[in-house]
């Protein structure tokens, strides 16, 4: 272990140890807090009876299904708006009118139209994921080296081939950055929908643990949700570096 990571770990370990000692010393009786050792035990318990794994599957299924739908829709519009300035200008007011609606505000509409379950969650996640992908892929397509487009014209590529062979490969690194952002959003929105209303997945699991006055289990869910968010982020950053290396950096800070 390097000195850097030791320093990074010092604070969380100190906090956990202090909390554990304090909870043991005061014989903590609480509906909202539990000593770290109990949280670990609860987490193992939830793994042993598979409840947390089933909840994880439900949440990730909804998040990824919504992400996939949102990506396809966002990409289609983003590329179309990026290629055609006319279309982009004509749609500007419509896009700017719909985009600021907070995704979670659609929850009641999705609820009466689709009822509880996967479908309403997927729709809301997809709505939330469309916008970052649309905006960033539009910007990516616009910033494609103009000479590449000239080559496409000189080769007389038909529009479909132009999109498939020139535009998508050239814009892909930055589109992947947008995808990474959206994946984080998808997980957040999925968990939020479950906490707010949908009796499904990790969000419902943590709410149930809270209502059952099981702070150890509730905090175990919190730790697990955090770990999934962290793992997803690390996975996508590694994938981005592997696949695109420096190419993605040009768009990463936007």
């Amino acid at each position, binding site marked *: 272990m390097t000195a850097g990571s030791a320093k990074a770990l010092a*604070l969380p370990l100190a906090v956990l140890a202090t909390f554990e000692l304090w909870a043991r010393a005061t014989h903590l009786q609480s509906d909202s807090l539990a000593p770290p050792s109990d949280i670990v035990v609860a987490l193992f318990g939830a793994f042993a009876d598979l409840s947390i794994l089933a909840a994880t599957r439900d949440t990730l299924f909804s998040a990824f299904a919504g992400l996939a739908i949102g990506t396809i829709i966002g990409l289609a519009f983003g590329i179309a708006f990026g290629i055609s300035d006319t279309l982009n200008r004509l749609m500007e007011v419509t896009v700017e*009118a719909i985009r*600021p609606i907070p995704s*979670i505000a659609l929850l009641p509409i999705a609820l009466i139209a689709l009822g509880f379950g996967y479908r309403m969650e997927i729709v809301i996640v997809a709505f939330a994921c469309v916008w970052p992908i649309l905006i960033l892929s539009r910007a990516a397509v616009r910033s494609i080296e103009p000479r590449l487009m000239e080559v496409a014209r000189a080769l007389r590529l038909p529009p479909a081939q132009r999109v498939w062979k020139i535009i998508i490969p050239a814009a892909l690194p930055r589109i992947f950055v947008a995808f990474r952002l959206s994946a984080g959003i998808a997980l957040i929105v999925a*968990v939020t929908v479950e906490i707010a209303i949908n009796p499904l997945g990790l969000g419902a699991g943590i709410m149930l643990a809270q209502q059952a006055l099981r702070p150890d289990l509730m905090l175990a869910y919190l730790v697990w*949700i955090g770990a999934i968010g962290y793992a997803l982020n690390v996975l996508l950053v590694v994938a981005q570096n592997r696949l695109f290396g420096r190419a993605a950096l040009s768009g990463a800070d936007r």
Partner: protein
Amino acid sequence: MNRAAILWRVASFAVAASFVGLWQLIANLKLVSPVFLPGPDRAWAALVRGFSSGDLWSKLAGTLEHMAYGWLLASIAGIAIGAIIGSSRTMRTYVAPSLEFLRPLPVSAIIPVAIAMLGLTQAMALFVISFGAIWPIMLATIHGFAAVEPRLYEVARSLQMSRLAVIFKIALPSASPDILAGMRLSLTVALILSVVCEILAGLDGLGHWVLLSARAFRSADLFAGVILLGVTGYVTSVAMSLAEHKLLAWQAAQR
């Protein structure tokens, strides 16, 4: 704006209007059951009715209040904590990695914990909203402080400025673009979490309004609430952009 730009705007509004027309047509032909989809005429009527009876005003005020308090608290705390961490290298090496680890946590997961601690109260909503909104501001402040031109710090040292003076006279102004960008991101987070808290805790606000309307299948009221939330999101982000522009005018002039 020149003439071509105005024409494009008009055309763009016309396209948006035709989408509303299409929505009206779908509603009139009952292609989608009116229980789920009211026409724009009914949604508009519900908006007017809600505002004239004062119901929607109080709900809108409730949501804005939750959002504003949480966001302001997050801004103050986020900039203060960010400044403390960002201005000290020791703090940065020990604390920043933990913050980076916590950042991808879906903030709404803190809601059950907040409910367990504080109950279904205004205090819970305030805690959740400011907890969610603090991250972008705090991380932006740390980043902004760490990225201050090192020569400015050297100037401060040779002028023997105190640490507080360095923070207020050098670091905060030079980190302000980062901080303001973080505050803009947080505004959206605050709006979303306000709605979620209102839905969960039944606090007076638009979130509660849309949920009640949905439960009672009053779809026109529901759409009126959603439209109003969209307007809220739009107006607050435009206001923030204007404020950003004003506050950063000195930097633009410098370049």
